[in-house]
């Protein structure tokens, strides 16, 4: 993967206008920090895997094949 690009300040202002300040603040975080947080959610909360052989609606998902 390429390193996350540095977008202009105007870009983050646009994100704030389109999606709100919270999402703009999130998008300003370094990529590693965003990935660390997402990984924590994936490992600690129920986030069913859509590619599981048994789909979520039939009680499949991460750790519950």
């Amino acid at each position, binding site marked *: 993967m390429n390193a996350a690009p540095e977008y202009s300040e105007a870009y983050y202002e646009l994100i704030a206008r389109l*999606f709100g300040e919270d999402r703009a603040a999130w998008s300003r975080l370094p990529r590693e920090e965003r990935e660390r947080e997402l990984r924590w959610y994936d490992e600690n909360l129920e*986030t069913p895997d859509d590619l599981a052989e*048994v789909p979520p609606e039939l009680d499949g998902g991460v750790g519950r094949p």
Partner: protein
Amino acid sequence: MSDPLGFVRTFARKMAQESARFALTSGMPHRMDIYGKPPRVASWSADADGLAPRHVVALMKRTDRDKDWPFVDSLGAQMHDRGEPEAVLHLQSPEWLQRAWNSIPEDERRHLIRRRPLLACVESPRLKRLLLLERLLWKAVNAGRHAAYYACWREFSRRASPIRSALAVRPFASQHAALLALCRAHALEPDPIGRLGRAEILDRARREVVAEGAATDEELASIEPPAEEMLP
């Protein structure tokens, strides 16, 4: 074809390889959307990371759902910051669009205007209104496209639904083979848009823009992209 499921197996294997590679290189858990035919995308190539490029995702986000349009705009902004001229095909915010358009050399403009006629009106005091009408047109075309698929799908789904639920526990390739057989058995229309007709979908969309947006013929002519851009 000696192995009708060969394509599916190859695709599934490649997808799994790509998923594993992406997970390894990014260190991230990830999700993947699979499209047999991405809407509004005539053809595309993966970017250097093996993923759909921003231009393609922005095309796919031109739906009739309001929540998708901020993504079209922000993807356009990312493309502009990355120096991609096609950003002007997607930008929705007037000030961004004007700035990006001014950075495009004269000799590249005609090609882009052909794909997005609104670009010829970037300096117009009516730009904001034209952007709204243009979005209304895309939304109406997508609603018509979706309705064409849904009309064909509705009856098939009613008849095939119990069987589809039972299929869900099978491996992917096996599900695909069984679904394909079901589609053939129930004569599911393979080309819903072609059956209704692109011209009819576009005509209905134009009428909606006139009814909902009070667009004049001149305004419609200023914003309407070629049919091959809207319904490839």
